């Protein structure tokens, strides 16, 4: 415990001051130990979480083998564990959400910081803050009631009146996820763009550039790491979303018959549905953890990479 003083964290240079009167006492030692315990708790639970999941998930993966990644039918009650529909569904709907939701959100953020009248900015931000806090099930319910019928009409309009298509499917879930992630992506993009120094913009204007040129040749390139982080974050959130997607994707446990308008499923939706039937300790149960492990690896990878980008960008 030394002499009861704070020291030597390079992140906090002010803390290496010593006060001769400060003597270590029992109470101090206890508080200090409690603080360290809080840190240990965070590390411990994270490790426990990863270990638990990895243990069960790997057990499932070993039992089932490679069909977990390549098999195209998911039928746990018959012992068929083809995970491809789940994985494909997750990635397809999340990618759709990025194209339909995250990209417009970034553009809207650019417009708001660069071109919009200053008077509307606060209100705009407030609306998006509340929209991003709306529970995802609420979006899911709205989509189930209003979006799915629209999609059904659209599907029949595109594929023909008696084509075997439904409103539920990848198209509906991609649109839903796009609506869900757009506010969050927009807010993160606004933060990234607000870090562009005013000097840069002024210098660009002084050189005779128009506001459009300043926006897309100065501000956006400066903030691109932050914008990328925002988009990736949107992807991770869309891929991990569960209940809302479960409500509109249809729940068919096979690859979609029709790319856009036919029921299929995602990893997280299937986990929630199957978890209620699978008895703990059975293969049926372990395999769900294997699927979760795939989701976990992907989202941890995405977020850690973007965080590294973000930290480097912040410097």
């Amino acid at each position, binding site marked *: 415990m030394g002499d009861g003083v*704070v020291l030597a964290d390079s992140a*906090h240079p002010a803390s290496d001051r010593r006060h001769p009167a400060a003597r270590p006492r029992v109470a101090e030692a206890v508080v200090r130990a409690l*603080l360290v315990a809080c840190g240990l708790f965070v590390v411990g639970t994270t490790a426990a979480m990863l270990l638990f999941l990895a243990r069960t998930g790997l057990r499932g993966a070993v039992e089932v083998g490679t069909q977990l990644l390549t098999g195209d039918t998911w039928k746990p009650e018959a012992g068929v564990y083809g995970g491809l529909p789940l994985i494909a569904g997750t990635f397809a709907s999340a990618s759709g959400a990025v194209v339909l939701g995250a990209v417009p959100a970034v553009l809207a953020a650019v417009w708001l910081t660069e071109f919009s009248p200053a008077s509307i900015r606060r209100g705009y931000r407030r609306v998006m803050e509340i*929209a991003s806090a709306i*529970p995802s099930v609420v979006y899911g319910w709205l989509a189930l009631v209003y979006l799915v019928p629209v999609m059904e009409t659209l599907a029949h309009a595109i594929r023909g009146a008696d084509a075997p298509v439904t409103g539920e499917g990848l198209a509906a879930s991609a649109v839903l996820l796009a609506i869900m992630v757009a506010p969050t992506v927009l807010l993160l993009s606004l933060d990234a763009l607000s870090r562009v120094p005013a000097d840069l913009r002024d210098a660009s204007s002084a050189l005779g550039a128009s506001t459009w040129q300043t926006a897309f040749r100065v501000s956006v390139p400066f903030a691109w790491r932050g914008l990328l982080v925002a988009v990736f974050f949107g992807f991770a959130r869309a891929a991990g979303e569960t209940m809302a997607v479960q409500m509109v994707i249809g729940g068919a446990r096979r690859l979609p018959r029709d790319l856009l308008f036919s029921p299929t499923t995602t990893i997280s939706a299937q986990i929630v549905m199957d978890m209620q039937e699978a008895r703990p300790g059975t293969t049926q149960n372990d395999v769900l953890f294997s699927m979760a492990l795939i989701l976990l690896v992907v989202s941890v990878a995405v977020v850690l990479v973007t965080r590294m980008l973000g930290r480097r960008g912040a410097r």
Partner: protein
Amino acid sequence: MSDDKQPVHSVRRPGAGMEAALKSALGAGAMVLAVGYAATLVYLVVRGAAKVASFTTYATPTNGIDNEEIMRFAVAASIFGAAAWGLMALVRRVATHRGRWSGSLNRGSRVAVVGVASVCALLARNHLPRFLISLPSETTAGGGVGPEIFNTIYFAVLSTTITLPIGVGAAVYLARFARSARFVGVVRTALDTLASLPSIVYGLFGFLVFVVEMNAGYSLFAGAFVLALLNLPLVVGITEESLRAVPRELDEASLALGATSIQTTLRVTLPYAWPGILSALVLSVGRVFAESAPLIMTAGTTISRSNAYSLDPFRGGETLAVHLWYVNSAGLSPDRADVSAGTAAVLVVLVGLTNVLAARFARFGGAEGTRVRKATQ
């Protein structure tokens, strides 16, 4: 870009018209986005309002569940309290404008708000909108969300009592007491990992630990613990930020007066950073309201009649968000469209309130905060 022979301002740069057109297209798109979300929010509240705000003239019979009377009183008190407070804020604004508002009036108005709310609550507690106080129903029309509202709030309380000490402790450690750079790195990586996990993974973990390994069945405690974990990165992040925003002079003054570093932290740094911490906690409460997947796997999707309003944390129970999902994917009641609309409206109002509160608390913090203003007057 400009032609030498002409004065700069009269030059029309090639492509300017194109840029203007693109700009307005972008603006139109952005406005459509914002108006769309705003309209959705308004629609959600208006659509559910009929369900939520229909007071009855005849008394609703009680179901004979423990604590039901208290629950009714609490719901009534918060409805009338909010109404009275809104009215008072209006009166205050008008009175201040006319220069007729004083400190004693201010205190009096607060007492009046509390008084009016409790009296109205006592009188009207049996005439509340049925939807807000009755039990959900699986197969028949007319189900309510009373227990769900209770569970949602109770979850917020439970998970905050776990998040608050651990989150603030870890943040204080990181911001003020960390010694080993390696351990700090490990903690930060752990937090980053936690922040990146999809919520379903938290649910699986909670299921594995509490339901399978401990064989405790679905319980509110398991759900609250999982939600607390989910919120840790957020709370630690914002708390650490507001701790680092505390002016160095304050800490140094305290240390110079002979206080130990722990005393300084407890009596100077934490109180100063408190509004920031509070806003982090309120944000995390908003996430508790919104989360559903982990709760389905740890706290279940049922409401038991016998202990719907019990404070026992080891019983199972669903929240509003879970109920909204359950009604639509497994419920059989004929009025589920109305029930969903009402549930969504209550949920949106709760989440909106937490957001407004968080913004308010965040404004109190830092060098412009009320605490500092008071101290320096």
